[in-house]
């Protein structure tokens, strides 16, 4: 299985993206050859993230538990200290012409299905603006532009280790193979932009939210890998695969998304984003991956009250449905909501950040009922020390509270409430 993943055949859509990039290399005409930059040092970069982690609370879902973070405590839920090679990324950003570039990121993440896997592979077309209107387009494997906390190739979190609950979920389940076009126009001193995209291969979005609930972590969905789920109840354990595959097309129906952004003359940017994968809840593969019907709205605000202070906020509300109707409700019918507020302030080479998260799911499915609903809060504080352009040290503490009944309470005897604290110190190297 692993060998297949690392050597995909051309029937796979990711393989086609890579093949298309290779074809572009070969087709770079002599006229454009000077503009092309395929393998110089400028096109290659790498990121490594090693950590010391201390955590308590329930085991992570990657270890078969219901924990709310990437790391959990020991078998008695007491504090456990461990070194972790959290992530290593190799990023290739070839430039085919002055307007056409590519991004391919391969990542190694601990406790993932594949030790090394593809996380991004897309083309970006951005011609030079001829006036105050600019157009651009992107196609391939990528995260739609929802998160205000991530930046650049490799999708790194700014100044913190762990993104909010909203963007943790975007990172693990809302990744598409698609194409989008953006038009941006300067209007007076502000800039307004609109993006529309069509996509496929994101039919299982919502699986983690429904079965595990919200979580705060920095795992990233991979092209070929699957993700662990916590234990399922007896009604679902034979209907749903033990692991969910975030990048898969189940029902052969494309989805769409759209975004409007207004960068105001004041240091404020507002955005609104809508996603709908047009999933068919009854569609299922022979390996029990389902076509989740998932749609959501996300609103984002960024305020820069000074050059050294940044305030970010997002709110997301959505719904996902899966399975057959029994008799008039789908097996799973999950409404989900979350919001966060984050403040970051730079003091010389140190950036300190604080964030509060609120999250909730409301279960109304035939097989996943009200008892499985979740309510929770999280508080995060972080300090990021910028030592050089290549070295960052980030310290972070997260405390998460979650209240959820259902299978964890009735079948496994776990308490309805769980509290978890995770303390991490990360050394992030960029080459």
């Amino acid at each position, binding site marked *: 299985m692993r060998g297949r993943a690392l050597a995909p055949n051309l029937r796979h859509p990711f393989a086609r993206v890579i093949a298309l990039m290779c074809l572009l290399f070969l087709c770079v005409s002599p006229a454009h050859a000077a*503009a092309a*930059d395929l393998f*110089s*040092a*400028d096109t290659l970069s790498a990121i490594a993230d090693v950590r010391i982690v201390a955590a308590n609370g329930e085991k992570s879902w990657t270890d078969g538990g219901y924990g709310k973070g990437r790391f959990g405590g020991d078998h008695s839920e007491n504090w456990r200290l461990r070194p972790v090679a959290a992530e290593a990324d190799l990023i290739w950003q070839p*430039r085919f012409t*002055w*307007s056409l570039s590519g991004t391919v990121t391969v990542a190694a993440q601990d406790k993932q299905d594949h030790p090394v896997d593809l996380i991004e592979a897309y083309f970006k077309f*951005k*011609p*030079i*603006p*001829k*006036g*105050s209107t600019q157009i651009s387009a992107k196609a391939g494997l990528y*995260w739609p*532009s929802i*998160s*205000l906390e*991530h*930046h*650049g190739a490799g*999708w790194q979190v700014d100044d913190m280790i762990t993104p909010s609950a909203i963007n943790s979920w975007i990172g693990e389940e809302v990744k598409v193979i698609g194409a989008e076009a953006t038009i941006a126009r300067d209007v007076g*001193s502000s*800039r307004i932009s609109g993006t529309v995209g069509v996509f496929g291969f994101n039919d299982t979005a919502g699986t983690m939210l429904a079965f595990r609930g919200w979580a705060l972590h920095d795992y990233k969905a991979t092209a070929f890998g699957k993700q662990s789920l916590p234990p399922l109840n007896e009604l679902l354990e034979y209907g749903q695969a033990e692991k969910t595959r975030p990048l898969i097309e189940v029902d052969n129906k494309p989805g769409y998304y759209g975004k409007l*952004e207004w*960068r105001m*003359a*004041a*240091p404020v*940017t507002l955005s609104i984003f809508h996603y709908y994968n047009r999933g068919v809840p009854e569609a299922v593969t022979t390996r029990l991956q389902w076509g989740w019907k998932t749609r959501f709205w996300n609103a984002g605000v*960024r305020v*820069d009250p000074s050059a050294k202070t940044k305030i970010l906020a997002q709110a997301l509300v959505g719904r996902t449905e899966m399975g057959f109707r029994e008799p008039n409700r789908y097996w799973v019918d999950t409404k989900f909501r979350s919001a966060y507020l984050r403040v970051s302030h730079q003091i010389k080479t140190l950036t300190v950040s604080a964030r509060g998260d609120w999250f909730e799911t409301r279960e109304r499915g035939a097989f996943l009922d009200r008892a499985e609903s979740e309510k929770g809060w999280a508080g995060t504080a972080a300090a990021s020390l910028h030592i050089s352009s290549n070295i960052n040290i980030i310290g972070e503490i997260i405390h998460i509270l979650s209240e959820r009944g259902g299978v964890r309470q009735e079948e496994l005897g776990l308490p309805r409430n769980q509290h978890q604290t995770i303390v991490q110190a990360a050394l992030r190297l960029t080459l």
Partner: protein
Amino acid sequence: MRIWPLLPLLAFASPAIAGELIFQLTDAKGAPVRDAVVTLYPQGRPVPITAPARTYQIAQRDIRFNPFVLIVPVGAQVTFPNFDPVRHHVYSFSPVKKFELKLYAKEQNRAVRFDKPGVVPLGCNIHDQMTAFIKVVDTALSVQTDRSGRATFGAVPNGPVLAHVWHPYLRAPANQIELRIASGPGRQVQSVNLSLRAPPQAAASY
């Protein structure tokens, strides 16, 4: 602060000599405003630029343009050396001068001539956060404010003077206001309070 090198000679050449004229620019909070450009038109007319032709420069270093604001006379040539180890795709779609430069890493021999007065905003199509402005002027009396918000003119002919104050984020049509002052002998300080917009945020990378 920048001033044409031959401005002192201009003072000796002119029959009507006045003392210093200093503009002190502050924002709404009273903080000094740097990178504003003050241009003077004695009797409403530009002072001919007689300085010998020289080459001006906007460098690209550490994924930034340097300087952020550059004053050049009409007809000046500006070079765009790239000291970064990465490419830059410099452009402007200003009506004053439309151009694009495809600059390879460490490429340092590209230049553009600016033939019309006005403002030329610069951008890089690869690095959205890079921005700078070239102010192409038609009068020798043109000075950029320094860190303390001062623009100092060593010698201005006596009489009525039309002054233009421009800043890339000034809340005014074309980012410019017009002042009418009377220049006299001796040292004269002109305090100007400006209302500025916040600099635009860099585009979100994701």
